[in-house]
């Protein structure tokens, strides 16, 4: 078992790549409770990175650090350093709203705005100061999210009238429209049926040409299908009985699934626990 408080000794899987996000010794606390401890992890550009692990191991918590969404929880506190292209995300001078414009997010449950399909996409672009041809942007975003054919005749209809899978693709289209560099996805398929899930996964393969994607998933097949790199998180009991999450192993996806270095990774990916 790795001592989670030290940097993994093995060479970083992502050494030779162009790094977008650097995570150095990051721990997240909710009040006195430590949710994630001492994570070192680099996210390479134009790749899909999956976070897997059992519930309560802090993968979603870590994901929410990358766009400062934890700021919304008053008791949350982040230590360590997260650098986005060499800028410290948690520098007091950094505007969290600006961070979220560069690092978009797709949530677990589809959450279109109570507006028309068109407005769902146009709104995000407008708040980000987009001045160009809005019709063209809406079409382009919907096409990128593989939703154009289904919605081109009903752009004025409410986004809430779509099916769950379509809503989630609308949320992806909305995120694409603001042209972020990184897209965070927090279990984006957990509320979708298998066919919608496949469509979203296909979409991810296309999107990684233009974006860097970090996806949290409970579905290991999904991680093995979409991810270039996979980080396995686990939870462990700390002194006093409360559990904290930590990064066990972070490697190319094939090696995490086929030749994991750690016993706990092996157990998890082969379905022996978790």
């Amino acid at each position, binding site marked *: 078992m790795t001592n989670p408080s030290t940097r993994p000794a093995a060479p970083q899987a992502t050494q030779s790549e162009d790094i977008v996000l650097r995570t150095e010794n990051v721990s997240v606390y909710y009040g006195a409770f430590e949710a994630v401890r001492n994570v070192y992890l680099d996210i390479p550009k134009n790749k899909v990175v999956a976070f897997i692990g059992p519930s309560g191991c802090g993968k979603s918590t870590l994901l929410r650090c990358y*766009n400062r*969404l934890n700021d*919304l929880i008053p008791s949350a506190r982040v230590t360590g350093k997260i650098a986005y292209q060499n800028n410290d995300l948690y520098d007091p001078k950094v505007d969290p*709203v*600006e961070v*979220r*414009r560069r690092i*978009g*997010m*797709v*949530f677990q*449950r589809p*959450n*279109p*705005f*109570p*507006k028309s399909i068109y407005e769902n996409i146009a*709104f*995000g672009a407008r*708040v*980000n100061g987009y001045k160009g041809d809005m019709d063209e942007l809406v079409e382009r975003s919907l096409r990128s999210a593989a939703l154009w054919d289904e919605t081109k005749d009903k752009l004025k209809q*409410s986004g*809430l009238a779509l099916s769950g899978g379509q809503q989630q693709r609308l*949320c992806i289209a*909305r*995120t694409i429209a*603001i042209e972020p560099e990184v897209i965070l996805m927090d279990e984006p398929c957990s509320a979708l049926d298998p066919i919608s899930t496949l469509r979203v996964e296909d979409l991810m393969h296309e999107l990684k040409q233009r974006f860097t994607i970090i996806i949290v998933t409970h579905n290991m097949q999904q991680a093995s299908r979409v991810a270039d790199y996979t980080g396995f998180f686990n939870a462990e009991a700390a002194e006093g009985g409360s559990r904290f999450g930590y990064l066990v192993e972070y490697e190319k996806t094939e090696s995490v699934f086929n030749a994991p270095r750690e016993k706990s990774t092996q157990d998890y990916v082969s379905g022996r626990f978790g």
Partner: protein
Amino acid sequence: MTLNQSDKIQDITSGGFDSEVTAARKNFGKLMTGLVVACVGIAILPLGSILFMLLKNGLSRLFLNFPSVFTELPPPPLVEGGGFSNAIMGTIITCTIGALLSVPFGVLTAIYTVEFGRGNKLSQFVRFCTNVLSGVPSIIAGLFAYGIVVLTMGNFSAIAGGVALSVLMMPIIIRTAEEGLKSIPSEVRQGLVGIGATNFQGVTSVILPATLPFIATGVTLALARAAGETAPLLFTALFSQFQARSLSEPIATLSVLIYNFAIAPYANQNSLAWAAALIIVVLIMFVSILARTLTARKIY
């Protein structure tokens, strides 16, 4: 499930277990149903009798020389005919002033407590105050308006009446607006944050539009309440026999007209009070139905 178990279940259903409901239980059930129906009858009796009396006494006067009650001024004592056009206008004016004051403050208060305060000390305190305010007797609201408007302006006025009504409308508007804001799922707020919208952009372009049906409901309910209030208007708006010429003068309202004319010793005034009461009740029912249809259009 094993075959054995299903056999057993069949055994029980076919075997004779007491499926007959005893006569005593049947009678007890009938008795209780009868009691409940009687209670319902008693509960709607006041409304029924009020409507009956209003229709019986008010309808004939309403259609006497129709539409004179809507167009003419209150008659002097012992003169036949007349109407209360000034009081109808006065009720509309004072309620409008009340709404103009209470809607912006009420909606902004709700936005603070739900969207920005998020359960902090101040928003808890505001919520507590709202509850207290909704329990304040309406005559106290009238005293408040008397103290801050009538005394400082030096005379009774439509504005003073409107201020008094706004105090009564405020808690209703705050509460319905809060309900509306809370009905919006937190996922939508996260989505707004996720696309890089500022709080202001999120609230003004997404949250508030989605809350509009609730706010409209609150406003109509508050108007229905305010239209029927008499006590706060007695010593703020006072009364006037004539059409209002400005907002800083005493103004007639339907509720105060009913109060004045119902206790007047003249038959014509009494019957005018019945007609006015009928109009107020119809108005309030209409507004309540409107409020229901508005809520039916809500998004979440």
